[in-house]
């Protein structure tokens, strides 16, 4: 038996409006862009919903109804769920229809899609619990498998996840710790023997997520029979982990690329062989014994050619911005003002730091595609102005940072 683990990550940040140093100290509505602004969150959500969420969920529901063997896993950030509840309840409902089938598993993560794990353990745990609560409320599930923001993973995270009661963690299938080994098996952590690891097969995942619509790619066009053939080439492997951004379908790869047809036909092609099926991440963790250990003293993510945190924390601006933000933790909690805490948390979303990346010459183009800013420097200026306003709100209440 050979199984596909399809896992998709769904997320939208609260983008900042154009916010100047002259707004700081006067207006506190960092996230309220005008409708015309390309950073407007509601407008962006409506666009992504129309291009990606609604058509993809329609296909997924149809597949779930047609093939009893079809299963998948999703992680949905808390900041997106908030926006769905407020602006597109129909989209939220379409996600709930998927989980209602009992064959769509939700994966745990931080509510704010943050890098808090690396800066404040207590804040991190609060955000994980907030996410747990909203998943329980909206989907009536209690996630058992964890993914940290951007699939960032290291031994510390493994130890934490085990102690927090998770059965498994998702991570990148990177050669740095796999060495010659294949990602198409279940592993365990070297520091947390009860914690199983599911590692992304980045070649096959990225064939869909990044290369699918690229007409210069020698394998273009990618068909389902070709793709299934590639999966089958690793004859003995029990699983193949296809992990990707949900927005691959319709947003990163446009409808015109044929991505929806690919998704629609993949289960049919795969299940034509009775030795094939789909598993959710918990199914896989329960079913397989680990074949080896993964030791990751350093942090590995699923981003860029470096597979580290450099896309978020690689330059001085990013390091300064995030350090400044987490410096406010203690003073903000002293005030216990919910609106201040909320704004502070929304600023922790990793996207804000991603927009500040200056890796122009290799991965820069990908970054530019997702950024509402003209340049990474504009992103930094805007973010720091919002940070200065948070500081001024503390100062007004007599708390100096």
């Amino acid at each position, binding site marked *: 038996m050979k199984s596909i683990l399809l896992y998709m990550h769904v997320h939208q940040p609260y983008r900042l409006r154009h916010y*100047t*140093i*002259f707004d700081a100290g006067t207006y506190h509505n960092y996230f309220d862009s005008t409708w015309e602004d390309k950073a407007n969150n509601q407008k962006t959500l409506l666009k992504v919903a129309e291009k990606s969420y609604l058509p993809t969920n329609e296909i997924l529901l149809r597949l779930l109804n047609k093939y009893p063997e079809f299963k998948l896993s999703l992680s949905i950030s808390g900041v997106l769920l908030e926006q769905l509840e407020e602006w597109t309840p129909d989209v939220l409902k379409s996600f709930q229809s998927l989980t209602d089938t009992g064959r769509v598993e939700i994966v745990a993560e931080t509510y704010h899609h943050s890098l808090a794990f690396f800066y404040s353990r207590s804040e991190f745990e609060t955000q994980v619990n907030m996410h747990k609560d909203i998943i329980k409320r909206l989907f009536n599930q209690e996630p058992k498998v964890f993914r940290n923001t951007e699939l960032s993973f290291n031994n510390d995270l493994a130890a934490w996840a085990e102690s927090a009661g998770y059965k498994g963690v998702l991570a990148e299938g990177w050669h740095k710790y796999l060495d010659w080994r294949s990602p198409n098996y279940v592993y365990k952590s070297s520091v947390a023997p009860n914690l199983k690891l599911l590692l992304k097969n980045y070649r096959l995942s990225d064939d869909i997520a990044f290369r699918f619509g690229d007409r210069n790619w020698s394998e273009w066009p990618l068909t389902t029979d070709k793709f299934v053939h590639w999966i089958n080439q690793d004859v003995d492997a029990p699983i193949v982990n296809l992990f990707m951004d949900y927005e691959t379908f319709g947003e990163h790869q446009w409808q015109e690329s044929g991505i929806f047809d690919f998704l629609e036909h993949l289960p049919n092609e795969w299940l034509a062989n009775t030795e094939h099926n789909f598993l959710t991440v918990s199914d896989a963790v329960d079913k397989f014994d680990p074949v080896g250990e993964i030791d990751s003293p350093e942090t590995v993510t699923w981003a860029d050619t470096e597979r580290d945190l450099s896309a978020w924390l690689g*330059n*001085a*601006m990013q*390091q*300064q*911005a995030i350090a400044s933000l987490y410096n406010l933790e203690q003073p903000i909690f002293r005030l216990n003002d919910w609106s201040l805490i909320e704004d502070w948390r929304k600023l922790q979303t990793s996207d804000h730091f991603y927009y500040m990346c*200056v890796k*122009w010459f290799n991965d820069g183009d990908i970054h530019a595609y997702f950024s509402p800013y*003209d*340049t990474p*420097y*504009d992103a*930094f*200026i805007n973010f*720091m*102005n919002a940070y200065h306003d948070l500081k001024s709100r503390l100062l007004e209440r007599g708390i100096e940072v």
Partner: protein
Amino acid sequence: MLGWELPPHNSGGLGVACYQLCEQLSKNDVDLEFILPYTSQEDISFMKVHGAMRDGVLEIMQSGIAYDSYKYIYNDGHEEWHDLYSQAKFYEHAVADMIKGMSFDIVHAHDWLTFRAALRVKALRKNIPIILHVHSIESDRAGGRHGNPLVREIEETAMLGADTIIAVSNFTKQKIVAEYGIPADKIEVVHNSIDQNSLIPSDPDNAYKYLSLLKQNGYKVVSNVGRLTIQKGLTNLLHAARIVVEKLPKTVFLIVGSGEQLHELITLAADLGISENVIFTGFQRGKNWRDSFAISDLFVMPSVSEPFGLTPLEAGFYNVPSLISKQSGVTEIISSCLTVDFWDVNEMANKIVAVLRENALKNTLTDALALELQAMSWERSAGLVKQLYEKHLHRAAV
């Protein structure tokens, strides 16, 4: 090659660009003769440099920078003064005289002051291809307005008659098409570059003693280096300066250069109540020029219409980041800078404040620009120019 200025007698980027382009072309085995509108003893080994002299003229002297009037000293001892427009006419006739004994394959002329001369050559030698190199057009120099109709006439006539036009940016190419209706396929874009070897590193002993002292006391310096003309957009910078000073009183704006707007700008600074924070130095060369960059925390080029704009690259060499108007061609070749629309003084102020407050921003911009500068050279641009030459020579031969 016909041009109006070369270092050290240049008033800005035009002379530097001509010099460095020619230096690289000569390395690529192009044999150059350069005709200037004035006489000077240049120490240039890679090409022959002539003053455009008519019979009977002993010497032509610039009175100030390259765009002021000229003094003619004749063999018989009498002197005449000529303004820029009549100087361009004299230059035209002198070039026509001079080429009688010269042999050459191509005429390459830089900006409108030499365009009449180029057309005159075309009239005398029908088979010689004419390449016009546009570093700016009249509407740039007029700050986006119509400008002088006499100059516009020269630019339009010459560009219509030229075999090829070189524009220093896509920004300029589009303006040439829009302003003069020149077919886009006749215009090639060749970006300027910077030869870092031509710049002398700054020394720790900065010429601005007072500013150094202020900096020790927590002040920050924002500078502009350039001609004080409407094209350069400095009134907007002063309006932004007022907003910045309100937020960060320990900020000094250093305005280096001369030009017809000097008195207007001084008055404006006073009207805005920020005279104490704005320092006008006049035109500077050499160490004082270098140290204007070196003392700065941020360089601002707020030009209303800047075909290329070399100064942000020079600032980068002295480890100073730049805020550049989006109406500037140089933003086509560098990414590591801040940009702003020249009219948006609030956003200009916002970005100035950000750089002055956040060292991380300043350092990231500086380091990233240094990497971009390292990769820059005139080789590629000169290669494109040489290709154009060869294309025309080939065509002429057929």
